[in-house]
């Protein structure tokens, strides 16, 4: 079976300038915190929100004589992520020092992998709607240390430094400049987040800064990008600016939109875009230059003499590959092909792995489409309304499956099923037992239904005349019968009997 559904590429966004049309070219560097208990090179905890400087080992504080020892699980997580992005795994990689001074970096350098990253080229399919997706090529993933946290607003003259995050393992995922609109950029980050959450390699919590992105943006005239793709010659593209440290999908979109228009205005006014690093200010909705840090760009990388090259075995990589879970693209394709769901519904159900697992438990041995309808429309609708998640759902997959079984057996109608769902939501219990105990079972006894139909017909002679003249009005009788039986009469049986009795 194909890993993913067939798709067509989306149209690139076109921005109309004052003088001509412009297109965007976007590449991202995503920093994802590796989900691990301990840091990349020390035995300190990675737990978020601990007391300041309590998750700090002597290595993290760069005490003299302390040596880094790599956390093997962090390496496995990076490999797992690489495999999830269909990327080449480099069995030999190496660590370099990126030198700069900042109070939250006690070593005076960050240990990173510039020259020999652990993961090479891969790809991500970014869904932009049913049948439409952008294939974004991954250039590399490398492992590096995070820095600490500086707090500037606790004292007028001092900055306060917390090293709890110092040395936590990050993956930097670098894309090719394949992204062509602000929406695609946000969807790309969302897709990476989804894949990593499926893999359990990063929790994807953007609010806590566990997933953040540097965004490279340039603009070009229509046709230039195609020339670049053909030749690989960057001179066909415009000068790019890098917007640093974005931790919200909404801000990523807004920042790219603003930055593209800023660059277009400069070029159309006869100026030139200067390659620089910029920051997005969400309060003002604009990007501004980080000129103060320009000099810090001379990082003087060199191989870290404290660390031997990182060599891993193919067999070890194969073990990781063998234990990979089903990924979102595969799961979505399977839901469409095997369960007959629409691509849209399959996309909704596979967005979070917990949701997909819940749905599969409901759908197991039952009708897939019916299960999808109940999970998406009734359950997700209600969870959203009440601000709950699948993990805190009052209705379990077994209970919802029980409701669907009762509908399938003909024990309850769709309408009664919704009442039953309400009872399960507020009171809990076993669906079949509730239906039995509260007399909610659908009346399939034709004699009882016939009696109810006769009663309504006898009581409403005028309506009978109208219905005989206009058979469409028979629906009124069906409604009355269902009402009289508390919605428990089998609607198909009622329909048939009403038509028969009215002689339609």
């Amino acid at each position, binding site marked *: 079976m194909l890993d993913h559904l067939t798709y067509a590429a989306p149209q690139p966004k076109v921005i109309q300038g004052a003088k001509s049309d412009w297109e965007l070219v976007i590449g991202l560097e995503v920093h994802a915190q590796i989900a691990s208990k301990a840091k990349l090179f020390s035995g300190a905890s990675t737990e978020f929100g601990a007391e300041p400087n309590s998750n700090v080992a002597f290595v993290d504080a760069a005490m003299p004589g302390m040596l880094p020892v790599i956390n093997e699980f962090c390496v496995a997580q990076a490999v797992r992520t690489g495999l999830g992005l269909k990327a080449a795994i480099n069995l030999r990689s190496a660590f370099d020092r990126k030198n700069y001074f900042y109070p939250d970096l006690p070593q005076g350098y960050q240990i990173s992998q510039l020259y020999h990253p652990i993961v090479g080229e891969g790809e991500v399919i970014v869904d932009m709607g049913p049948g439409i997706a952008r294939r974004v090529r991954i250039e590399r993933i490398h492992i590096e240390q995070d820095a600490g946290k500086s707090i500037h607003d606790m004292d007028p003259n001092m900055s306060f430094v917390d090293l709890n995050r110092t040395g936590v393992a990050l993956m930097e995922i670098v894309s090719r400049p394949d992204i062509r609109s602000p929406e695609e950029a946000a969807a790309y980050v969302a897709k990476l987040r989804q894949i990593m959450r499926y893999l359990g390699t990063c929790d994807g919590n953007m609010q806590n800064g566990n997933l953040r992105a540097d965004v490279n943006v340039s603009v070009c005239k229509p046709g230039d990008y195609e020339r670049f793709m053909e030749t690989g010659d960057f001179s066909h593209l415009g000068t790019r600016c890098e917007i640093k440290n974005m931790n919200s999908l909404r801000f990523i979109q807004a920042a790219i939109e603003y930055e593209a228009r800023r660059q277009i205005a400069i070029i159309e006014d006869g100026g030139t875009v200067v390659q620089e690093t910029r920051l997005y200010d969400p309060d003002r909705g604009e990007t501004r230059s980080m000129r*103060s840090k320009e000099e810090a760009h001379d990082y003087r990388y060199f191989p870290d003499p404290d660390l031997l090259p990182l060599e891993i075995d193919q067999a070890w990589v194969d073990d990781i590959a063998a234990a990979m879970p089903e990924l979102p693209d595969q799961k979505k394709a399977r839901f469409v092909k095997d369960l007959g769901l629409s691509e849209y519904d399959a996309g909704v159900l596979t967005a979070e792995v917990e949701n997909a697992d819940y749905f599969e438990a409901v759908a197991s041995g039952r009708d897939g489409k019916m299960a999808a309808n109940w999970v998406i429309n009734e359950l997700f609708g209600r969870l959203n309304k009440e601000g709950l998640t699948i993990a805190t759902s009052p209705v379990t997959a077994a209970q919802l499956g029980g409701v669907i079984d009762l509908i399938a057996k003909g024990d309850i109608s769709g309408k009664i099923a919704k009442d039953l769902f309400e009872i399960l939501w507020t009171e809990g219990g076993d669906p079949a037992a509730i239906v039995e105990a509260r007399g909610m079972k659908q009346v399939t006894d034709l004699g009882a239904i016939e009696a109810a139909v006769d009663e309504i017909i006898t009581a409403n002679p005028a309506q009978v005349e109208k219905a005989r003249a206009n058979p469409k009005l028979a629906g009124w009788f069906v409604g009355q019968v269902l009402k009289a039986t508390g919605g428990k009469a089998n609607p198909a049986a009622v329909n048939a009997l009403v038509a028969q009795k009215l002689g339609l």
Partner: protein
Amino acid sequence: MSITEDQARKVAHLARIAVDDAALPALARELGSILHFMEQLNEVDVAGVEPMTSVTPMRLKRRKDQVTSGSMADRILSNAPDAREGFFAVPKVVE
């Protein structure tokens, strides 16, 4: 390759080492002679030779993903010139 006084000043600044202007000419000369030695080494043909990373056949040492250290903020902060409320306190860093 020679190093100018300006380059020497820049390198010193990047390394956050205070160097008096008077000391720059000598520093530039020393750095230049180091680079000259590097250039000499560069003349050796090392095509096809793997860079040596260790004199003994060693594998990079690994650790397990276990929390084995931490919860000692007082010791971490004990050498800090200034610390407040569990944080290192440093002169204001302007963004």
